[in-house]
């Protein structure tokens, strides 16, 4: 299972990086989304894939799942939600001001 997850993460990461290298800012935005998903999966997989009951609530269960990585991922997702919301609006505003979604035109002046 871990190997399958690693492969999935690898593919996600590769796609994300590919998208982030492209010239269209919408693609870059989608790339950042996929990147954060792959990173959350890394967090999930590295902490160990376990079967078990939630801790504390089911005292008679045989095995418990580690709650910490889940809490971490939830936090990371919430943060990612905020960042994505911001970046979407930023991309939109950039498009409005510059009338382009091509990063090639957003390079800036040569002498900087």
């Amino acid at each position, binding site marked *: 299972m871990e190997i399958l997850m690693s492969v999935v993460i690898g593919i996600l990461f590769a796609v994300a990086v590919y998208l982030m290298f492209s010239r269209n800012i919408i693609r870059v935005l989608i790339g950042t989304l996929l990147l954060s998903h792959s990173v959350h999966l890394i967090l999930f997989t590295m902490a160990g894939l376990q079967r078990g009951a939630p801790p504390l*609530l089911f005292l008679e269960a045989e095995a418990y799942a580690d709650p910490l990585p889940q809490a971490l991922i*939830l936090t990371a997702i*919430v943060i990612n939600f*905020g960042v994505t*919301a*911001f970046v*979407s*609006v930023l991309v*939109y505003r950039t498009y*409005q001001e510059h009338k382009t979604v091509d990063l090639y035109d957003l390079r800036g002046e040569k002498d900087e």
Partner: protein
Amino acid sequence: MIKEPNDMMFRVFIRLIAVIVVTFSIYLFFSGHNAPGGGFIGGLMSAIAILVIYLVFGIDRIKAALPFNYTYMMSIGLLLAIATGIISWIAGYPYLKQFFDYFQLPFFGEVELTTALIFDLGVYLLVVGAAMTFILTIVEDDS
């Protein structure tokens, strides 16, 4: 953007869908203490419900019906969440320590109420406010 709504089926069923989604979001919000759920998920659900209503009936009409200022909603949520922590401080415990007790409520029976619920309410308001602000910022812009 839809100015003149024309989707008949959508308009009929949206009342049902919105009620179900809002109910589910409230369920998620209250179950969040011990089971999967909580303010964040509940808030997102509610935001989706509000958004679907916006989508069907058009922005201007709903703005008149639901006159929320989502920016203020965010900061009220934030203040509520912080205030929960300060309660335990005033009681002489470390910041954010939670207290809980069991209450007999009519209709619901015995219910566990915790201060974490107030914190979650803050999160709920914050998430609804943030999600709506972010989406409306893009949607409302006609240019």
